[in-house]
């Protein structure tokens, strides 16, 4: 991916110089060896600060909703990030012509320790962006090496009781810092239900029952909208494997509605539409 860095800089410079966009949201050098950090470029002279490497883990689409008042935004986005952008467009959070997507075929990004491709990426089957304005590189599909064991399939194969115990053990690590929610581009609610006090939905602090409510409600809110970028998993300071919840729900949505979020801008999100053919076996 490093080869794309120069092309991204060139494109960013062109867009800013021509005043096609007000700002380019991209990755800059991080302060630690295996990290990058989001940067926001308004001056074409600063495009050299843009980097692209295997540590560009953040999903920058999270900034689109926050910065949309700046004008048209260009964004450096991996295919999974583009899926979030597609969902944001579908949900009318951003307008298609107010965002310039710079994307590329992605081989996956590495874990925070820099050792290996993140499990989220190694199991990802979508290496090319569903939509883009500028495609860097040839855009050819890149096959990923699948994980030798599939922890999500393993989780799915368990009984509901066993799954409940696993989820409880995972969530017991949570400190309710909301890094997962805040790193997620799809969590754009101005007021999250956990912060409502009249009435109060859940207790403050990290009591397990409250923590579980937070994560389960958040995961269900993301059903059919989650672009599987893993921003939540990577953001977690405590190493909570949120993927078990998100991947299971994504799998359910795919099985029930034959749809994956953020792939087709012309198709409404699975849970935002009704079809007479939809799965309804739960109505007895």
């Amino acid at each position: 991916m490093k080869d794309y860095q120069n092309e991204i800089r060139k494109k960013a410079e062109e867009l800013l110089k021509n005043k096609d966009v007000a700002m380019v949201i991209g990755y800059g050098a991080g302060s630690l060896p295996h990290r990058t950090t989001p940067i926001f470029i308004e001056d074409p002279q600063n495009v050299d600060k843009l980097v692209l490497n295997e540590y560009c883990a953040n999903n920058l689409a999270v900034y689109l909703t926050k910065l949309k008042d700046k004008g048209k935004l260009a964004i450096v986005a991996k295919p999974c990030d583009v899926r979030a952008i597609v969902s944001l467009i579908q949900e009318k959070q951003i307008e298609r012509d107010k965002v310039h997507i710079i994307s590329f075929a992605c081989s996956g990004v590495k874990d925070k320790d820099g050792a290996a491709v993140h499990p989220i990426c190694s199991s990802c089957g979508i290496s090319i962006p569903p939509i883009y304005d500028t495609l860097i590189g040839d855009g050819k599909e890149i096959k990923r090496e699948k994980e030798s064991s599939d922890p999500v399939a393993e989780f799915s194969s368990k009984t509901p009781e066993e799954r409940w115990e696993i989820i409880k053990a995972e969530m017991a690590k949570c400190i309710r810092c909301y890094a997962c929610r805040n790193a997620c581009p799809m969590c754009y609610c101005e007021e999250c239900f956990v912060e409502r006090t009249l009435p109060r939905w859940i207790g403050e602090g990290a009591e397990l029952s409250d923590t579980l409510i937070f994560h389960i409600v958040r995961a269900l809110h993301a059903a059919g909208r989650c672009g599987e970028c893993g921003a939540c998993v990577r953001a977690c300071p405590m190493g909570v494997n949120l993927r078990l919840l998100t991947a299971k729900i994504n799998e359910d949505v795919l099985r029930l509605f034959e749809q994956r979020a953020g792939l087709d801008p012309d198709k409404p999100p699975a849970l935002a539409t009704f079809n007479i053919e939809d799965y309804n076996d739960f109505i007895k």
Partner: protein
Amino acid sequence: MTMKDRILKKDGLVDFLNKLLEFLHVIAPVGKEAYSLYQTIKSGDEVCLDYVRPLKSAKEVFFPQNEVMFYFNQRTQKMIEPRAKDKTSILFGAPPCDLAGIAAQDKLFESGDFKDVYYIQRRRQAILIGMGCPEPAETCFCNIFGIDRLSSSVADLFFTPVADLYYIKVNTKRGEELVKDLPEAGAREKKALKQLMEKPVEFSLDPISLEDLAEALGGNFNSPLWDDLATRCIGCAACTFVCPTCHCFDITDDTKKDLGRRVRTWDGCMFPKFTLHASGHNPRTVGGQRMRQRVLHKFSYFKDNQGIISCTGCGRCIMVCPVNMDIRETLKKLSEELASASKK
């Protein structure tokens, strides 16, 4: 009378801890998957000292994230059950940055007009056993605060790993009670400790003048830097929750019919709703104001109020930040701004 230093062979640590466990509650770093956390141990072999510092700081030992202050009956308006008293406990294995964090919490919760009974009760019955930090991590910058990674007077006992043993500095009588059966440190061990302490170690951040920093902060209240930083910040509380000195909390009542409990929980100044008033007014509506509050509280207000800076350079905030915000860069930028302003 000065208390004699002791030594303990590294391979004797598990037995030493097991002996303490016979009559005391011990909290120590425990490895869990890729991380270690301070947890109550049942056996000495659970202790994991492989990491520079546990993922979360030691603050929760005395100031837990959730704490029931008391129970009450809503109808009768009576307190129905005082909270249970904590037993004497030992905090083992805290590195000097965490011990400095405890010293800052002590100032806040124990001195001044408001004495925090919940904190004091836990803190005063506890015996602290510190642990020297073998090698700073890439996020460590305790050096700029004058914290010695190999010693600390905050702890009752301080263990410094020297070759195949721990050199134990005895700081208090309570501490001495625990190690009085161990052999005394001889000239050879003292020399080895001295050599270790004199060995230069590189840190990630070159020392910066803290006086200059205080001045820089004073002159940077309206700096555009705060808004710049806040653009990147996603507004979670990972940094504040892992911080050894962040101490803000919220108090809520959990009720079920007539029964209720008053709970205190951690809160964080990076949350937009942290400062929301009951009137609906929020004095810190934009991220830049929140970012400024966090930095100024640590490096300026706390110093004004308590006499010390409330950052210990543990680097946890740098390590956990989902978007790689780095407090060291902020400090450097502030110092640079000051330098360029003084040139003008």
